[in-house]
């Protein structure tokens, strides 16, 4: 699961998906371990100390109705603090570890070249509009180049949506009046592996109305040169061909785009 990919440009870029998978793996491994130990230990003791009808042991001091609680200390309390301390160490170190990677995810990879592409994502009931740096916009499908850092500024035109792609492990709230950001980048190997054009399913992760379920979209990643060619052709245009159907039935158009594409 963990294979830090090195993107084309030779720096140590790691996609959010990589970071996520790593942390998820570590948490899953430790979580399963700790969970299994605790549950197994508990089950074993519950079995061991079951009431099998035999005579109570001497040190068994049965409580009686109406007693005030006593007995707060004893050897068990020591054990209690020991286990508590151990688990606290596990939890805290996990989170400190994850925090280091959070700082990376927040910043995004360090890219000296000015090639970052900033795309504004605007959610609406029920679809996504992508506005490119040159003012051109598409609906339903975002087309981006491989090997480049894509910065998304996510906002909404009407209600609260949440833009996300599970496969790319990116997600960002789309809130009216606010801009939240995230970033991603896809290597050209991945694009090639998908046959020269990589596609990723986009979904809405915040309930936004009757069409929420169908509020899907797609991110298409093209090789650099192909993308540049496409992008050059958009200069001066203001709306995409997809959009020509008009905003009124935009969502059905988006769906048509998506349904046809392999997710």
């Amino acid at each position, binding site marked *: 699961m963990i294979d830090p990919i090195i993107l084309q440009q030779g720096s140590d870029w790691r996609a959010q998906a990589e970071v996520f998978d790593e942390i998820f793996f570590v948490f899953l491994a430790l979580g399963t371990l700790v969970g299994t130990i605790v549950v197994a230990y508990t089950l074993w003791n519950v079995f061991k100390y079951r009431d099998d009808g035999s005579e109570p042991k001497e040190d068994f001091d049965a409580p009686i109705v109406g007693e005030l609680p006593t007995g707060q200390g004893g050897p068990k309390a020591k054990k209690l603090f020991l286990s508590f301390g151990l688990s606290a160490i596990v939890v805290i170190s996990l989170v400190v570890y994850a925090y280091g990677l959070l700082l990376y995810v927040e910043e995004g990879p360090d890219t000296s070249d000015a090639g970052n592409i900033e795309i504004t994502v605007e959610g609406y009931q029920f679809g996504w509009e992508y506005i490119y740096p040159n003012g051109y916009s598409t609906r339903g499908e975002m087309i981006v180049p491989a090997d480049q850092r894509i910065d998304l500024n996510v906002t909404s035109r009407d209600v609260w949506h949440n833009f996300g792609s*599970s496969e790319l492990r990116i997600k960002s709230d789309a809130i009216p009046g606010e801009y939240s950001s995230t970033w991603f980048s896809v290597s050209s190997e991945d694009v090639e592996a998908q046959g020269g054009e990589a596609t990723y399913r986009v979904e809405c992760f915040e309930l936004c109305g009757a069409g929420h379920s169908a509020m899907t979209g797609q991110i298409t990643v093209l090789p650099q040169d192909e993308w540049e060619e496409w992008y050059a052709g958009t200069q001066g245009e203001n709306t995409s061909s997809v959009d020509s159907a008009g905003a009124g039935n935009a969502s059905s158009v988006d769906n048509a785009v998506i349904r046809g594409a392999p997710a």
Partner: protein
Amino acid sequence: MSELPPTTSVKRWLVTTNHKDIGILYTITALFFLLFGGVLALLIRVQLWDPMNQILSGLAYNEAVTAHGLIMVFWFLSPFAFGFANYFVPLQIGADDLAFPRLNALSYWMYLFSGVLLSISFFQGGTLSAGWTIYAPLNIPAYTPSIGSTGAILALAMFTIGVTASSVNFLVSIHHSRAEGMGIMDMPMFTWTILATVWMMLFAFAALLAAGLILASDRVLGSVYFSATEGGSLLWGHLFWFFGHPEVYIVFFPALGAMLELFQTFSGRRLVGRKWVIIAICLVSVQSFLVWMHHMFLTTINLEIKTLMMATTIGISLPFDLIVFSLIYTLIKGRIQFTTPFLFAFGALLLFILGGITGVFLGAIVLDYEFRGTYWVVAHFHYVMFGGATALIGAAYYWFPKITGKMYDELLGKIHFVLFFIGFNAVYFSMFLGWETPRRVFEYNPELQIYHQFGTIGAFVLGFSFFIMFYNFAKSYVSGEPAGDNPWDYSRTAEWAISSPPPLQNWPNRPSYASGKLEFVKDYVPDRGPAVKTDANGNGATDGGDTHSEHIKEYPYWDKHPSHASIWPLTLSFAVGVLFLGLTGFRDNVVFEVGESLASTSVTISNPVYPILIVVGLVGLVWTGVKWSLEDFYAPPTEFAERWPFEGVEKVKLGMWFFIASDVIVFGAFLSAAIFVRYNAGWMTWEPLAEPLPGLINTFVLLTSSFTVILALVAARRKSRQGLLASLGATIVLGFTFLGIKLWEWNKEIFERGVTISANAHGDPIQASIYYVTTGLHGIHVVIGLVIAIFLFVRAYQGHYLEDERPIEYFGLYWHFVDIVWVFIFPLFYLF
């Protein structure tokens, strides 16, 4: 005061104020809502069977998801727990009843009628469809236009009012009525968790009430808070989650309390590290108010705040670690009996462990970025909340013999547990496996279908298992074996020391722990005079003036029998229900056309039903309120009680303080909302709408009225009827002066400057909304104060309050509070 009819009479259940009766009512009503929410859940699961074929439309699905969430969290979980709390907390602390029995009945009826409102909302053009988190701006009429959406929100607001009343009641009861010798650290764990729960409720639900009122104002009056792009959406997020995170512990803690009790009873061991568990519970209660933004990691909050929230989130999981280990170690060296209640409690622990571990995943922000809005979250919170509720099911089996006097069927109980546990994990573990599915979506990625189908099958198993429980309880109630007073070998708490079911008055004699264990003390009761404690030698003990002379003065009705019946809680709640039902359709059916002046403003009423309901509700509210106040209802105070840390505070006063504390949060939320939005809009871009001078005059008017209230109290203490009437009268006149100036100011704003609640000729419409809504909320407080003041005035005229001036004093507390709030409002809306 009317007599309490027998349990076989329907009337009994309408008028009862006895905590045990009300506990039963809560439990049964909550189980009804469990069925209701459960049916909706099955609808959801059926829809998820196939990612392409649907039985519900998108809108209907959203309604089902929303109503399911709201019902399970609000109308099932907490009320179910509070059924037990009502029944057993007074028993566990050795009290006769809750501190305010009528208020307790009121809470129940508010709960019931709010549930009725919610049910009606389905038929008002469809209920709310914005999710149980009701995010903005989907929650405003532009996006959820149905009247039923407003209905659901008002139902929630009404529920919240009931909860607040209930929190105050439990707080006073637990702090004020513990039997002699039972210090706060000696309370049984179930009572402890309820205490922590109601403390959180007092503040958390106040925040929800504020959020609900603002939303209701947006929907009914037309203010524009949540459609404002100046942070309107985030405002809802903050308000909701400030409530929402404590809420998850509010629903979990009673279940934890059940676990703590049941683990001890069925292992015969005492809780390990009891003191530390209590400390952990208190810590969690405080910390729960400091983590809310971990639900908002993907919004635009900055890294510093995210880091802080991550730290507090991890911080709050640590006390839970300790509690879990304490539960586990308690079992060791015990004699564990695998009865049905224990199985459920133990199952709850296992489920909670899994839920807790997956919660830590969510606390790590990078993981949360991906889990947010997916079935991972859904699975997590079902494991913790419903997993917790599993212990409450155990509690139902545990206490069934006490409540009914009959034993349930053990075999059926175990079958229930097995099916429940299998079904539970089938539904919710499959959600972890298919976690990439977005929440509240039914057209999901087909690759994940297998998990959802598995879950749907599990859901039906889970649902079916409950019918075994219902059958078991019904059958056992009719023809079960008599259970005896104490069917469990190792029970400790006081409810097991009395008969099953317990008598109306709970105790044979006064319960006392003064000797270190429960004893029933026979107090010597002279013919006319308060109880006198007798020590071992039969001599009246003189432990401070507190018990004797003080009590005679404080409680002039000491020789009366406690009351157990009143019809007014029911009627008052009903009136509120009618009022709220009327409000749901107000905006759609009453249209104001603002003209040049008040006279030329026209009102068009398209459907008179709703306005009529409003008027009927309001009249009913005032009428029943007066009836309530005049009713001769006697709830005896606990004479010998442990009261730390509130010794020396009389119970009504204590209740008043708790109520004010929660109202502080309500106003705090309104003022924070004002500041938050203004900050987002750019602080300096707003000029105050209203002129400072009238505001300043009003400030003086209100402060003066605070002074006259003090004079009224002094006059009452001096037994001067004249003085009392004069100063009360002055207070009323000043109050009306304040309102008059206020109305004059509003009139000017509306007709001269074109500033209404939804439009602003001089700037942001949201600024106008905030101005009207915040000062309006304060104005409503003034109006309520005036209604009470007039009531007091009439009674004073009839010669009351000279012997017992406490009502004047408590009214004064409220009135001062309202004045202090104005001191905060004034600079914010008139000066800067």
